[in-house]
C-alpha cells in the first residue's frame, strides 16, 4: 500500500506485541453499527494515472501563463523570482510543524523573525506577527484587537466603503456575535465614486464610542490619499481615543510613504503579492503590524530573539500568554496554524528584491498603469474616473456593460479583463477596475487598448 510501509510480517509481530488477534479488535470502542458503512469514492489511481487526470484538470483552465491579465481587485499577477519556490520547496521548511521545539526549529523561527523585521521596515511599524490567513482576516483580527484594547467598552467601528468588499464582509462574519456597530460603509448602494472615496465623512463618524477607524491605501479602486489627509484622519481617530488601521498593498510601499509615517496604529494587508503567486485565491498571507505598546493585545504567533544556555543567539515563539493554547477562552484569538510557509516566501521575496528591487517593481506598476490609463482615456466612449492619484489600479467608465466587454476581450484577444464594480457598488454600472503590474508588457497594454476599442464597435 502506498505510503504505508508495513509488511504482513510486521503487522503480525505488532499485533502479537499488543496482544490482539486483528487490527479490527483495536477499534472495539467504535460502535459496530458505525463501522458497517460503505464509502463511495472513486477507485484509486497510481501516481502515474493521477498526474494524467490532474494535468487534464489544470489544462481545462485559462491562466495567466496563456492570457494577458488585467484583473486585480485584491489578488495581483506579480513576478515571483525562482529563488522563492526553491526555498519553500525545501522539505526542511515545508514538512515541519509549527516551531514549538525551538532547538530543532531555528530555521523556521529565524526566517519568521526576518519576515517580521521586513514587514516592520515596509510598513513603518514596530511589531509584526507571524501572519494571519489573508488580508481580510487580518483586518477582522485588527477589529477584534481594537475592541480588546478598549476592554470591549467601545462597540463602534468605522470602515471606509472603499475597503475591499470581501474584507468588510469578513469583518462582519467574524464579529457577528460581538454586538458591534459598523459604520461608514452603509450607503454604498447610493454612492458614486467620489462619495465612496471621500475620507472626510469618516472623521465625522468618530466619537467616544469608536474603537477603530479603518481605511485602505491605495483603496479598492486603486487610488492613493495624501499623507496630509491620512494624518488628519489619524488625528481625528486619536483625539477620540480610537485606533487608526490602514489596509495596504505591500508593493505600493516600495514607493509610497508607509502608514507608520501618517499615524497608523495597525497596518494589515494581503501579502500575496510578496512572492505568493495567484493560486486561485489561496494560500495567501495576511500580514499584521502594530505599535510596540499594543503588542500584548495582538493576536497570532510572534517570534522573539533570545539566547541559549551557552549565550548563542536564538529564536523562540514568545508572548504566548496571548494565545489559545495557554489562555483558552480568554485568548486574543483562536488562531494557531497560520500561513507559515507563505511568510518564508515573502521573506525570500523581500530579501531577493531588496530596497532597490521592490522600488523598481512599484515604479514599473505605476508607469505601466498610468500609460494604460492615458491610452484608454483617449478612446472614444471610455473615461478614466476619479481625480485622485492612483498606483497600479484605476477605474474606467465603459460604453457597454463590463461583462460584455470582458467576454469580448477573452474570446477575441485572450485577455482577462478587469473587475466589474457593479457587483459590489450598484451605482457603478459600466465601471471597470483595471490592474496593471510589471508583468504586463507595453504590447499587452496596446492590445488591451485596441481590443477595448473594437469591443465597442
Amino acid at each position, binding site marked *: 500500500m502506498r505510503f504505508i510501509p508495513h509488511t504482513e510480517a510486521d503487522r503480525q509481530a505488532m499485533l502479537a506485541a499488543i496482544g490482539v488477534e486483528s487490527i479490527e479488535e483495536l477499534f472495539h470502542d467504535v460502535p459496530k453499527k458505525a463501522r458497517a458503512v460503505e464509502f463511495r469514492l472513486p477507485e484509486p489511481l497510481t501516481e502515474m494515472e493521477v498526474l494524467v487526470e490532474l494535468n487534464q484538470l489544470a489544462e481545462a483552465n485559462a491562466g495567466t501563463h496563456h492570457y494577458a491579465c488585467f484583473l486585480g481587485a485584491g489578488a495581483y499577477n506579480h513576478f515571483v523570482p525562482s529563488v522563492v519556490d526553491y526555498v519553500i520547496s525545501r522539505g526542511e521548511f515545508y514538512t515541519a510543524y509549527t516551531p514549538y521545539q525551538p532547538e530543532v526549529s531555528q530555521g523556521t523561527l529565524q526566517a519568521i523573525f526576518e519576515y517580521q523585521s521586513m514587514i516592520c521596515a515596509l510598513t513603518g511599524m514596530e511589531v509584526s506577527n507571524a501572519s494571519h490567513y489573508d488580508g481580510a482576516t487580518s483586518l477582522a483580527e485588527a477589529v477584534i484587537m481594537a475592541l480588546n484594547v478598549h476592554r470591549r467598552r467601545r462597540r463602534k467601528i468605522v470602515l471606509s466603503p472603499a475597503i475591499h468588499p470581501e474584507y468588510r464582509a469578513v469583518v462582519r462574519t467574524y464579529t457577528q456575535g460581538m454586538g458591534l456597530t459598523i459604520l461608514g460603509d452603509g450607503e454604498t448602494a447610493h454612492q458614486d465614486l467620489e462619495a465612496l472615496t471621500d475620507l472626510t465623512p469618516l472623521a465625522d463618524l468618530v466619537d467616544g464610542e469608536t474603537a477603530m477607524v479603518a481605511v485602505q491605501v491605495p483603496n479598492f479602486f486603486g487610488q492613493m490619499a495624501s499623507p496630509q489627509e491620512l494624518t488628519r484622519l489619524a488625528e481625528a481617530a486619536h483625539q477620540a481615543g480610537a485606533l487608526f488601521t490602514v489596509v495596504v498593498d505591500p508593493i505600493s510601499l516600495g514607493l509610497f510613504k508607509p502608514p507608520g509615517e501618517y499615524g497608523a496604529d495597525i497596518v494589515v494587508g494581503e501579502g500575496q503579492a510578496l512572492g505568493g503567486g495567484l493560486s486561485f485565491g489561496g494560500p495567501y498571507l495576511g500580514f499584521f503590524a502594530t505599535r510596540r505598546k499594543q503588542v500584548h493585545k495582538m493576536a497570532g504567533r510572534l517570534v522573539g530573539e533570545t539566547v541559549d544556555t551557552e549565550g548563542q543567539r536564538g529564536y523562540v515563539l514568545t508572548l504566548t500568554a496571548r494565545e489559545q493554547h495557554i489562555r483558552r477562552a480568554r485568548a486574543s484569538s483562536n488562531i494557531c496554524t497560520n500561513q507559515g510557509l507563505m511568510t518564508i516566501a515573502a521573506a525570500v521575496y523581500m530579501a531577493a528584491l531588496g530596497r532597490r528591487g521592490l522600488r523598481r517593481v512599484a515604479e514599473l506598476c505605476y*508607469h505601466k498603469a498610468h500609460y494604460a490609463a492615458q491610452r484608454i482615456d483617449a478612446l472614444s466612449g471610455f473615461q478614466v474616473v476619479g481625480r485622485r492619484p492612483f498606483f497600479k489600479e484605476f477605474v474606467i467608465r465603459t460604453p457597454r456593460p463590463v461583462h460584455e466587454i470582458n467576454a469580448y476581450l477573452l474570446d477575441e484577444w485572450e485577455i482577462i479583463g478587469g473587475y466589474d464594480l457593479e457587483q459590489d457598488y450598484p451605482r457603478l454600472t459600466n465601471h471597470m477596475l483595471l490592474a496593471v503590474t510589471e508583468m504586463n508588457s507595453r504590447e499587452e497594454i496596446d492590445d488591451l487598448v485596441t481590443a477595448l476599442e473594437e469591443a465597442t464597435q
Partner: protein
Amino acid sequence: MTEPLIYELSRPGRTGVDLPDPDVPLSDMPEEWLREELPLPEVSEVDVVRHYLHLSQMNYAVDRGFYPLGSCTMKYNPKVNEVATRLAGFRNLHPYQPEETVQGALYLVYHLQEWLKEIGGFAGVSLQPSAGAHGELAGVLMMRKYHLDRGDTKRRKILIPDSAHGTNPASTTMSGLEVVEIPSDERGNVDLAALEAAMDDTVVGLMLTNPNTLGLFDEHLEEIADLVHRHGALLYGDGANLNALVGIAKPGEMGFDVMHFNLHKTFSTPHGGGGPGSGPVGCVERLVDYLPGPIAAIEPGSEDHPEGPLYVWKMPAKSIGRVKAFYGNFGVMVRAYTYIRMLGAEGLREVAEHAVLNANYLLARLKETYPLPYDRTCMHEFVLAGPPKDLQEKGIHTMDVAKRLIDYGFHPPTVYFPLIVPEALMIEPTETESKETLDAFAEAMLKIVEEGREDPDLLHNAPHTAPVRRLDEVRAARKPILCYTSLA
C-alpha cells in the same frame, strides 16, 4: 551553529533580482507622497539561496525523520502533491476569473467537497476555512445562527470537555458565546453525569473531539449525541483526530452535526512550519444553508450538458458569510484531492487501521516503563504521564525527556497537553512510519529512562546535538526583541 540575519549579510548596492527597464513613457509622481527610506536588506541571489538553505538545515522535519507530535498527524507528505499543486494551470489562476475559464479548478473543488461529504457522512461541505481553528469558528457561528434563525435566542452556552484543544474555547469566545467546561471521567470519557447536569435549553452545543486528545474513543458517544439532541442542542466535532476514523466510520452518522476537517493532518498536505493549512467545515442537512461560502456547485440545468456540467460558485442561502476573501487555500485543496484520488476508500481505511496499529504498538512497548494515566486501547495516539515516578522525584520532567529525544534524532512528542494529564507526553506515530522506526523510538525512550537514573544532568542539559542549546524563553518574553534591532 548560528546563521547571521539576512540584514547582517546586506551590502549597499547588491540585489538578488534584475528587473527590466520600463517599456512605456514615464509618468509624473506626487513627490511629497513618496517614501525616503526603505530599510530592506541588499543581498545577491546566491546570498539568499545559501542563507535560507542554511536556515532550512537547522530545522527538523518529516522529510528528515520521525515526528510523533500528538494531535498534529505528522504523516509523510507525498511528493506528487507538490508537483500537482504547482501545475501552471492551477497556480496561475486569478480568483475572479470568469467561471467558464476555470472549469478544471472548479471541478476539483466540487469533487473534493463531495468526497469530504462522503468521508464525513455530511450533506454539505465548505472548503473556505484556512485552518482547523478557522473551520471551528465557522462551525460555531453556524450553530449560533441556526438557533437564532429559529427564534431560539436564549441559547448562549457551548459545552467543552476539559481535554479539548484550546481553540475550542477560544472559538466560542470569538463567536460571542459562553464556555462551560465539562470534566472527564476516570476512563477518559466525557463525564456523563456532569454533561447531563449542564444540559438545558440555554446550550448551543457540545464541542467534542473524538477520539479525544487522550487518543481515546468516547465509550458513550451514542448517549452523548442523544442527550445533546434531546435538549435541542447540536454536536460539534473537532476533526483534528480524524486520522483514527477515516475510511472506518462517518462522524455525520455517529451524531455529529457539524465538524471541521484538517486537510493538513488527515489528508497529507504539508504543515509548512505552521501553515498554510485548510480546515473545511462539513455539516448535516439542517445546517447546510449556514455554511460559509462561496462553495462550488453545479449550475442547475447543466447536469446533462454533452461537454459536462457547468461548475459555478454559489453562496449558501443563510450563510454565516465569508470567513476569508476568495474561496480558501486552493493550493492545499489540490494536494488533498491528489491524495484522496490515489488512496480511494480502501486506502483511506488502511490509513486509519495502520495509524491505530502503530499507536497501540508503541503504547505496548512503552507502558511498562512510562506511567499511563488511562490504560485502554488507544486510537491513533496516546498520552503518557511523563517519565517514571522515581525520575520525576529526581527533578526529571517531560521537557527533559523531550529534549533528550532530539539527541537521538527524533522530534519530541507534544508535551504538557492535554492539560488534564500532568507531565503529559502525547505521542502520535501516524501510519506512514515503519516498525523499525517505532522500535528505534521506543528503544530511545527506554534508554532515556536509564540515562536519567544514572546521570540526570545528561537529560537536564539536553539537547546536546541540536544547532542551539536550550533557549531562554523567559528572557525572550521579558525583554521582547521582535525585529532586527538596528531597525527598532
